[in-house]
């Protein structure tokens, strides 16, 4: 039985054929899991990790009753904010440099700036372990230069996590900033100079405001990546750094407390949502 279809119907069929495979995979690997995650966060678990099908708010209540949870939230927010600010301060000069340097150098340096993203987070974090450890490069240099007597604690603490995360995030922030520098033009700096602005004034009245969209995007990106970062805090924190991300992992894999892990994840998603909302509110002011 052959049926000849109209052109419009043919197009519809084609559209479905193109979209369906991707949609199916997306549903199975993303939509479904996220829904299930939400569901499980409201399920009661019997001791030993067995799931029931009893609906409860208990996971969330326990979360908010536990003072440790607040420590987790505070740690995660505090750490992400510090990392975001630190990355901004580190990446902005790089973006400014790339904006002003001649095109030949700009291409080379751009590739160099992006290339660390090709390297796995594990490798980069390991590199920091080598640098920051008690027997690592930095301590070795400082001791042989006679500046310190014994090794200083650069790792297995928050400081190590900050250093490692900031370095890992610099390429992401740089990418966002560089895009933001597109709005800038040397002629604005010249016009400001002719009107009497010195270098410092030109920087905070002209350069910073015009690059603000890039700054905001970069900050959002790095903040979000920091809140969800897990590898670096685990490896450089030495078990002493407690964040929401590490807690989810411990709950799910180590302690097999899946319902609690699910509710903690939902909390993480809520923080995400808040950050996004804040971003869109502020970004609107700068177009």
């Amino acid at each position, binding site marked *: 039985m052959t049926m000849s279809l109209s052109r419009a119907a043919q197009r519809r069929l084609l559209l479905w054929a193109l979209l369906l495979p991707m949609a199916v995979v997306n549903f199975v690997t993303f939509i479904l899991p996220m829904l299930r995650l939400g569901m499980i966060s409201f399920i009661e678990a019997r001791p030993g990790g067995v799931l029931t099908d009893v609906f409860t708010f208990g996971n969330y209540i326990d979360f908010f009753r536990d003072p440790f949870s607040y420590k987790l939230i505070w740690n995660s927010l505090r750490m992400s904010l510090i990392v975001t600010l630190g990355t901004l301060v580190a990446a902005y000069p790089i973006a400014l440099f790339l904006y002003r340097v001649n095109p030949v150098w700009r291409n080379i340096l751009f590739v*160099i700036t992006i290339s660390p993203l090709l390297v796995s987070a594990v490798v980069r974090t*390991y590199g920091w372990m080598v640098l920051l450890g008690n027997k690592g490069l930095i301590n070795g240099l400082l001791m042989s230069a006679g500046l310190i007597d014994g090794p200083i604690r650069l790792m297995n603490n928050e400081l190590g996590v900050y250093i490692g995360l900031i370095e890992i995030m610099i390429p992401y922030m740089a990418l966002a900033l560089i895009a933001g520098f597109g709005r800038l033009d040397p002629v604005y700096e010249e016009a400001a100079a002719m009107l009497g602005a010195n270098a410092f004034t030109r920087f905070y009245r002209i350069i910073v405001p015009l690059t603000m969209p890039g700054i905001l995007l970069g900050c959002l990106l790095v903040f979000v990546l920091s809140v969800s970062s897990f590898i670096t805090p685990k490896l450089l924190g030495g078990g002493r750094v407690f964040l929401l991300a590490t807690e989810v992992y411990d709950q799910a894999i180590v302690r097999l407390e899946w319902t609690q892990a699910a509710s903690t994840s939902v909390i993480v998603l809520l923080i995400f949502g808040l950050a996004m909302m804040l971003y869109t509110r502020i970004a609107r002011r700068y177009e």
Partner: protein
Amino acid sequence: MIGKLTLRLKILVFFLYIFLLAPILVVLPLSFSNDTFMVFPPESWGVRWYVAMFEHEGLTRAFRLSLWLAAVVTVLSLLLGVPAAFAISRFQFRGRDLLLNTFTAPLLLPSIVLGLAILLVFVQARLLGSYSGLILAHLVVTTPYVIRIMVTAFGTMPPSVEEAATMLGASPFTVFRRITMPLMMPGLIASAALSFLMSFDEVIISLFVTGPQVRTLPVEIFDYVESRTDPMAAAISVALIVATLAIILILERTLGFSKAMGK
């Protein structure tokens, strides 16, 4: 004079770049250390740990698995993502933006949350620790990139080019083969390269879905680094970096090569 590079900025940026590249650079000399423990600078030199790495069964198996997995995931991502991106770019339909956002949303969410969510579904579906489960899990992170890149690529390729070919008498298949495909090439190369790398380096979601039989290279490295303190991790890291560079070069050559052939 205005807006030129000052010496202060140059020096500052120089040190920033050293900071940026330090962890990657420091791993190279350490990999050639012959010490038993990780000491920097190494007290003795050699290739002892490279040898140990090649002889480590778990690692070599994981390397082969990651390579195979990345290749499969890349091909599948392209097969899934390119048609979808094409449909989104060239067709107007209700819910188009919503669909695009849904396809690319996994990029915005923390991997840790994604990993857990997938774990919870795979447990029921008995996909934990299986090859197909791993492939599906990786597709979550690679397909959004493919779609994003290809939607942009199609956006810069106005339909008028394809329409012109059609007016000149080319069948839809010919249009696709002779016009659309060659113009898509840069986007395809970028998507393929990115997919491969994302899958090859993917660690967090993989941590949730691997099992004793199925361990990817990043997972093996993570475990190793977490528990041991010898320089073999450095040798593995260098191997990983070299493998990454090689993969990019190979992809560039093969896909770029076929473009030169006029396919």
